[in-house]
């Protein structure tokens, strides 16, 4: 086996053409999962004994938070690959991951606040989990802001990648925050090892929603990366041919 795939992966044109074929499938699967999961969670999952119907916010809150964290890894790894191998496409992925991650973190924070009001009696509290998620939001915004801060694209990419890598310190803190400083935010609902604290009848729609958010994330990352490729490759022959053939 050669390293050809690795070089192909670095080619914006190869990425653009491959994703044209993948995206309809990924998009359709994600949409079906999200619709099924949301209807199941909103209408058919049993009501929570303690929190009543407000707990139904979990079906978007937890998946959004999951992907806000997973998306940060993707952004940081893409930045690292960009620095190490000088791969252009990798920086493009990093740049695209920032606004998507920021939006997902925003969703997690806002739905958390709305959920907090009927459950805790407050919209906001400086709890460790919530504060570390707010820091995550600012890290995403920071990577976005650095893109506009430099004249030289290469310098902007490197600066963004370094900020993304330094910010990974925050990720384990977010994961562990509910155990280390247990104040208001409830501990994890789903656990990879050991018993989850949720009944299967409530967990199935949650798992479907998480799968749906993963699919949506993959679709969005390709969607944003393609737009960025079109912009940065607009002087190349293949993009010109693509535009005039339409």
């Amino acid at each position, binding site marked *: 086996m050669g390293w050809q795939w690795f070089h192909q992966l670095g080619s914006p044109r190869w990425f653009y053409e491959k994703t044209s074929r993948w995206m309809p499938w990924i998009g359709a699967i994600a949409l079906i999962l999200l619709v099924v999961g*949301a209807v*199941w969670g*909103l*209408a*058919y*999952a*049993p*009501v929570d004994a303690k929190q*009543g*119907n*407000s707990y*139904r*916010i979990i079906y*978007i*809150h937890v998946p*959004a938070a999951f992907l806000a964290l997973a998306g940060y890894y993707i952004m940081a790894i893409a930045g690292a690959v960009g620095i190490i191998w000088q791969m252009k496409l990798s920086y493009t992925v990093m740049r695209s991951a920032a*606004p*998507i991650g920021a*939006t997902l973190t*925003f*969703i997690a924070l*806002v*739905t958390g606040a*709305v*959920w907090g*009001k*009927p459950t805790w009696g407050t919209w906001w509290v400086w709890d460790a989990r919530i504060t570390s998620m707010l820091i995550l939001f600012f890290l995403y915004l920071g990577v976005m802001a650095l893109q506009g801060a430099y004249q030289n694209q290469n310098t902007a990419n490197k600066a963004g990648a370094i900020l993304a890598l330094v910010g990974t310190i925050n990720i384990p803190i977010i994961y562990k925050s509910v155990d280390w400083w247990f104040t208001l935010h409830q501990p994890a609902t789903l656990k990879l090892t050991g018993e989850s604290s949720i009944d299967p009848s409530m967990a199935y729609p949650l798992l479907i929603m998480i799968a749906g958010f993963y699919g*949506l994330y993959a679709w*969005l990352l390709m*969607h*944003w990366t*393609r*737009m960025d490729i*079109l*912009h940065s490759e*607009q002087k190349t022959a293949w*993009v*010109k041919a693509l*535009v*005039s053939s*339409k």
Partner: protein
Amino acid sequence: MTFQFNSLIDFLNMAGHGPYVWASYAITTIALVTLVVYPLMQKKQIIAQIRRQQRISNPPE
């Protein structure tokens, strides 16, 4: 699997939690749709720009 509410009004109201639940789902939908639409608008602009460039470099007879 059964529908957890007695009526549609009941479903919308969710025993008082309706506004919180529906607001969360609405905000999430708006935010996600923005993520889908924004690159589409950008793409349109980029394509228009490339077309303009092409007209300048080889003008029609």
